[in-house]
């Protein structure tokens, strides 16, 4: 986002960024084991609600951060892409767990080696599964990005069309 230097506009952007980062409506796309650590982070002990991110919205149309939690197989990948496409701008994507970052140790016929092959990702939280403290650290990094109004729509997304011609 260009800063045209005006005092009022930059104050307004900061205010909007502040409001957005402390009211994150997440869409938790939970598939696998990382979901357990996601639940642990969201619950009383580690409490993601104190960061303003405690309300998951289970419809992509109402969410602004897509938490991809757990391994993505090739069977669910088109569904994930569709969920991402259904979200409205501004939106951010968090790759939670090493299976979403790079595929983890499931380097085989069934697994997508990293969701950044099909979606643009903002924050990568590695770990198998990541400890809740790491998740909160990733969340804080995400909040910094949101504050500075950096969002996924501004980077060119990788081509989601299939690499092979369908017969």
């Amino acid at each position: 986002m260009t800063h045209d230097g005006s005092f009022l506009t930059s104050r307004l952007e900061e205010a909007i960024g502040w409001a957005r980062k402390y009211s994150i409506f997440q869409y938790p796309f939970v598939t696998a084991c990382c979901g357990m650590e996601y639940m642990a982070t969201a619950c009383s002990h580690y409490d993601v609600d104190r960061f303003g991110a405690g309300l998951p919205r289970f419809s992509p149309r109402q969410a602004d951060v897509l938490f991809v939690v757990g391994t993505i197989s090739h069977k669910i990948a088109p569904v994930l892409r569709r969920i991402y496409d259904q979200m409205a701008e501004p939106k951010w994507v968090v790759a939670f767990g090493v299976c979403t970052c790079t595929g983890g140790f499931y380097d085989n016929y069934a697994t997508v080696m990293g969701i950044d092959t099909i979606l643009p990702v903002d924050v990568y939280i590695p770990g198998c599964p990541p400890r809740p403290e790491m998740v909160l650290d990733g969340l804080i990094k995400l909040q910094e990005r949101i504050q500075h109004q950096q969002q996924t729509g501004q980077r060119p997304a990788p081509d989601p069309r299939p690499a092979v011609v369908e017969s």
Partner: protein
Amino acid sequence: MSPPANETHQAVADVETRDMLLNVGPAHPAMHGIIRILAKLDGERIQDAEVEIGYLHRGFEKMAETVDYNGVMPYTDRLNYVSPLINNMGYCMAVEKLLGITVPERCQYVRVILSEISRICDHLTCVGASAMELGSFTVFLYMIKAREFLWELVEKVTGARMTVSYCRVGGVKADLPDDFAAPCKKAFAETRTVLAESDGLLTRNRIFVDRMSGTGVISAADAISYGITGPFLRGTGADYDVRKDCPYAVYDRLPFDVPVGTRGDNMDRYLVRMEEMEQSMRIVEAALRQIPPGPVQVHPETGRPIPAAEMVDLAKVGNIAAFRDDSAVTCPTLEGSGRASHPAIATDEKRVFLPPKEDTYGNIEGLMQQFKLVMFGHGVRPPKGEVYFPVEGANGELGFYVVSDGSGSPYRVRVRPPCFAIMSALSKLLTGDMIADMIPTFGSVNMIGGELDR
């Protein structure tokens, strides 16, 4: 002027109706993972439900053929990821059966203790999540709080909260820490408080009872014909529990009851799971009383404890005589076990388990044993054969069928997933109930994607 009554009746009967297809798609709010239910509805009643799975298929069985026997351990953690220690134990015991070895008694007690703690974690997650979906968010938070205490306990022993990879073929990674009993007691006290509170909130709650009773009913005969085992089966009245009927490890010495329901509906399954948690705590407490003593001083007069790093430094300069009788002081979650606890937690079969590090660094036999187990092309090599070993997972009978061709990697590892059988019966369970009954029924199935799709 309203038309005469029989004409209205005729008009209504002529109206064309059609069933509605509702897709409860792969991405849906239940915290259970990703499956797809295609429900054909007549109004609110489900006429037919087709269940589609496989969205989390990660190729466990294919990966198991590419790594060695101990390398399969992290993959087994991620099968039923809410009770990983039970999977670890099942796989290890299957391979040990193939090898024809048994582990020391203390090791069996340790495995049983941790399996039961895992089982409590699984039931807490299941009951908490299904209560949350019925609107009781408080119970979910309470149960996850209790689960945190148990995870901290598991972390004290294994080093990881969830994906632990604690068992090894022929033993476990390290012994219980010295101060295990006190935190365990505290964690169980917290869990019992949480269970009492949740019981008070749910069991006689009008909404909960109305939604759970009479929904998702299955008879014992039907359940057996689908291959269903575990709390799902015991809710129907059949009392098959692998720990009682085909006991393994030290379960035959530990006193516990197997709760059995009567009606086979969701309420009975909830009650069975709540009671099983109490019984699991009972098993752990009995095991801690019966467990044989642990680490021994290697040489009472001459041996002394030596920090592990110091021992390694001495060995690397070749001064192995300096620590010949000593035992290394290790952190069980990090370095594993030293010579003192090795005989308690590992089989003495040299071709299977790594030697204690004092031997690896200290004498040539230990070094050779280490090489033969670690170097590429060597490793644990069971004789050619096939075995099937069932353990009682949190969802039912978890069986491992391992085929070996004598080489260092398994030839075929098959997991018999307990929730696969339950999910295959899901369409039968859902048919005839209302849409809203899908939620408690699916919640009480305790579908774990890692186990279902592997």
